């Protein structure tokens, strides 16, 4: 499959502070790629480099097969969308007027406004002034703006950080639908649930370096201790190995009607992150 993003030995140093170093990864066309890391790990710096807002100190970064320096050209800007924590909106204008401006800038029909507002659950609020919206609603408008031209590649920096679970779920459904239509998504988040349900592959970024990169399933399997926890009817919890010895004991518990619940002991992505980096995702 064609790579839509290719990054090699990428580094960015601000004054004397290294934001990212020796970062290597690629994102395939049609993939949802998760960039996971705590605050200050270099996620936003990477997005800014990949969208041409920041010049790397060294290394190469290519988007659509071209150097990111070319992203200043209009024909490339039309192909990607960006949502970052500092994506601004015009507070004195309505949601509709904000999106109308971007329809004109991207040559998109105004009928698209209702479609994207529906995707972020804000269709009924389109006449509201942006300054009167809550933080979560503002974030949804910003996301709608990033979606308005149906970009080939979407950069999302913490897209659901200010949202309640219901709206997060709605946004996740919208992003999956967009991805099914062919949009590649580069997502940064520290929400492990979001990464697990959305991402095809994830990279763990810590102190500016990628520590692990794989599919969530493979990571969970490779860090699993291959045990299951059986909760018995008397309240006792028994940890059993996944092999034949564990199977025999489980059969015995089941045969005597002692089993209340059974859980596999796969670690969460958060557990793996802590194990690998020694840091919590926050």
């Amino acid at each position, binding site marked *: 499959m064609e790579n839509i993003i290719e990054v090699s030995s990428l580094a960015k140093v601000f004054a004397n502070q290294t934001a990212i170093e020796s970062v290597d990864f690629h994102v395939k066309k049609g993939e949802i790629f998760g960039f996971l890391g705590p605050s200050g790990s270099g996620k936003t710096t990477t997005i*800014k480099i990949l*969208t*041409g*807002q*920041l*010049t790397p100190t060294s290394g190469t970064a290519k988007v659509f097969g071209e150097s990111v320096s070319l992203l*200043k050209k*209009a*024909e490339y*800007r*039309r192909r990607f969308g*960006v949502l970052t924590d*500092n*994506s*601004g*909106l*015009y*507070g*004195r*204008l309505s949601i509709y*007027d904000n999106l*109308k*401006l*971007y329809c*004109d*800038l*991207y*040559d998109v029909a105004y009928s698209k406004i209702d479609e994207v507002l529906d995707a972020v659950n804000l269709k009924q609020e389109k006449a509201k002034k942006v300054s009167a919206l809550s933080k979560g609603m503002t974030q949804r408008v910003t996301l709608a*703006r990033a979606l308005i031209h149906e970009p080939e590649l979407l950069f999302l920096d913490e897209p659901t950080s200010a949202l309640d679970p219901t709206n997060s779920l709605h946004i996740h459904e919208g992003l999956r639908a967009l991805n099914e239509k062919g949009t590649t998504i580069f997502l940064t988040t520290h929400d492990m649930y979001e990464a697990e349900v959305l991402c095809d592959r994830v990279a763990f970024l810590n102190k500016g370096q990628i520590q692990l990169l794989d599919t969530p399933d493979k990571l969970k399997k490779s860090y699993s201790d291959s045990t299951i926890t059986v909760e018995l009817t008397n309240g006792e919890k028994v940890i059993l190995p996944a092999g034949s010895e564990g199977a025999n004991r489980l059969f015995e518990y089941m045969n005597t009607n002692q089993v209340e619940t059974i859980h596999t002991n796969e670690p969460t992505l958060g557990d793996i992150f802590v194990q690998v980096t020694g840091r919590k995702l926050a």
Partner: protein
Amino acid sequence: MMISLKRMNAILQKDFKDFSRNYAVSIVIVIPILLAAFWGRMGADSIDMHYMLINMTFGMVAAFVQCCLIAEEKEKNTLRGLMLSPASTADILGGKSLLTFIITMVVVFFSAYLAEYKPANVAVIVVAIVLSSFFYIALGTLLGLYSKSVLEASVIVMPVIVIFSFGSFIAVAAEKYPILQAANYLPNLQLIELAAKVEAGAGFGDVLVEFAIILGWVIASIFLTVVIYRKRMVD
């Protein structure tokens, strides 16, 4: 550089709606008009008085409004959104300057009308005023790009308003202090010089030097603005 009239118009429409609701900035456009009405009733009809008003309009409307509009786009991170869109530098800077240009022209017209200024050669004066407005709008854009907030913008634009509004006083001071002779080449003083010549019967051919100097300021300020804008596109 590609220019899209559709995108420039979209930015103009957005700015018009936004500006009409931004009373803190839009209120300044009435000040030159009120002063003009006042001076007109007082019978102040010298070229220096008329051009103090016109240059003040350039400072308070063209430079101040433009500076605040750009600074607010920076402060609210909306300029970055425009920069990441397919709009070119010309679309964005042109679109963002159109509203200020239109307002400036309207205010200059009403101020001149209320102050009862009737130029001897309207065509020459109109060209000179339009050309001068480009310089002040570019200067406002430049200062806006340097400001981190609207508050900061409204402070750093003040010297511009003072220096360019009261050009006649600088000319008087330049006669006394030779070190200020260079100030005679400022666009506001060149505009006054040009207007005085027009009142004495000069046509386009007689004021080419003044036009050339003002044009030089326009080109230099636009060039500098584009360079700084492009630098601001990258963090």
